[in-house]
């Protein structure tokens, strides 16, 4: 129930922030209406990095405590992070087309770093999909998530160097709107959107975590059911029992 309230609050916050960013804040002098894309774009990028940070920390938690609940946090966070990363890239491209005149700007370190970020964590999710044993999957995923998180700063740093070692930033810096001199409505629109998106992220995390726990229970029950059937077969009986997945208390029994 509390989660549902959080969901409605997050929805209301996103709608309010969108309305504020679209209709109340004036258009940017140089970039026009395209600049409004920055509000959800920056918010998504922030959540992408937050998600992958949480995934790495949850991975450490699994390796340390061997509790599958940490793994459930890791997979939830990684999936939601991939979604926000894709959204950030899409928003960035929509913004870049009118402002820079091109969808893809190889010289922008943020864009290229984020694209690699997406590749890293899509690989992480694929790795999980192709592993069956829960403990093995958790261990593999934990260390892959950890190494990916370590790699991201190097990627960002190297791309900044790559576009020219002796060249300062030449493009409009989206973070400049957080500059103290930025007009108050712009700052409010951005901060509001970041808060609204973060609320949405929290709601998604809770729901996805609950789903991950249910999936783990289901997996365990299915495994337990196979054991029961195999045992019954070994005793020479025909298996007529109902599937323990449906019987509800099998999840408890499996534990």
């Amino acid at each position: 129930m509390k989660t549902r309230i959080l969901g409605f609050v997050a929805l209301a916050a996103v709608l309010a922030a969108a309305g504020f960013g679209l209709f109340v804040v004036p258009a940017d002098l140089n970039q026009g209406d395209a600049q409004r894309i920055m509000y959800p774009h920056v918010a998504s990028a922030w959540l992408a990095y937050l998600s992958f940070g949480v995934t790495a920390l949850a991975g450490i938690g699994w390796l340390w405590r061997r509790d599958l609940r940490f793994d459930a946090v890791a997979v939830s966070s990684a999936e939601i992070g991939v979604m926000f990363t894709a959204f950030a890239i899409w928003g960035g491209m929509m913004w870049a087309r009118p402002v820079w005149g091109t969808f893809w700007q190889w010289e922008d370190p943020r864009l290229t770093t984020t694209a690699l970020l997406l590749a890293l964590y899509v690989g992480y999710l694929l790795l999980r999909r192709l592993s069956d044993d829960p403990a093995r999957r958790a261990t593999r995923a934990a260390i892959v998530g950890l190494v990916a998180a370590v790699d991201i700063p190097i990627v960002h740093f190297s791309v900044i160097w790559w576009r020219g070692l002796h060249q300062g930033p030449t493009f409009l810096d989206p973070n400049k709107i957080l500059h103290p001199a930025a007009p108050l409505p712009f700052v409010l629109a951005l901060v509001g959107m970041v808060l609204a998106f973060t609320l949405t992220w929290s709601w998604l995390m809770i729901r996805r975590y609950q789903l991950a726990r249910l999936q783990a229970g289901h997996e365990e029950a299915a495994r337990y059911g196979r054991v029961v059937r195999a045992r019954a077969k070994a005793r020479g009986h025909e298996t007529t029992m109902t599937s323990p997945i449906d019987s509800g208390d099998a999840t408890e029994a499996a534990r």
Partner: protein
Amino acid sequence: MSDVRREITIAWAIARKDLLAELRGRHTAVSTLTFAALVLLLFGFALGPDAHRLADAAPGLLWLALVFAGLLAVARFHQIETEDGALEQLALYPVDRRAIYAGKALVGAIAMVILGILVIPAVALMYAVNIGPAWAVLVLTVVLGAIGFAAAGTFYAGVTVRMRAREVMLPLLVLPIIAPLLLAAVKATTAALTGDPFGELPAWLQLLAAFDVVMVIAGAGTYGYLLEDG
């Protein structure tokens, strides 16, 4: 101090075992080299026949060929351990897991260096690139790149070795991770071939070295978990 020496001995013993097996069978060397040569030939078809364009793109093509062929090598050096339960035996040895990782990474790095030293002249011949006095820097770049690639590749080969569809998963995981290495190695190679007019060569070599250090530490620190239940 003697602990470190002991671990180096173990790492070398593992690397030596793989090198000996390779010297006697030459399965990895033949397939990897052929693959690298084939990739270079196909790049020529894809970007040629303009000789200038090929020469300009040569550093990038060289490193892509090395990376693709290197993937085959690191995968192969882990796959030989899955036969007859050798990996489980390896995990049972009462030695530091970091030494096992170091040995596997070492043999990967040696294979990559040999591959690089053989492929560079091939690139010079096929794409009409004049190496001249740049060879010493090129070898240094290859050595640094080989260490970083083997460190990351060995780690991911360990992750995927017991998985379904490992042939697909290994490149999917390794390629985004080594993007900084590819970038720095290509830039360093370009700088070496053009006589480093902007004086940026040391910076790229430092970036390569930093990548090597981070990947070796990350791989050595986590490889033990993989042997236990990965």
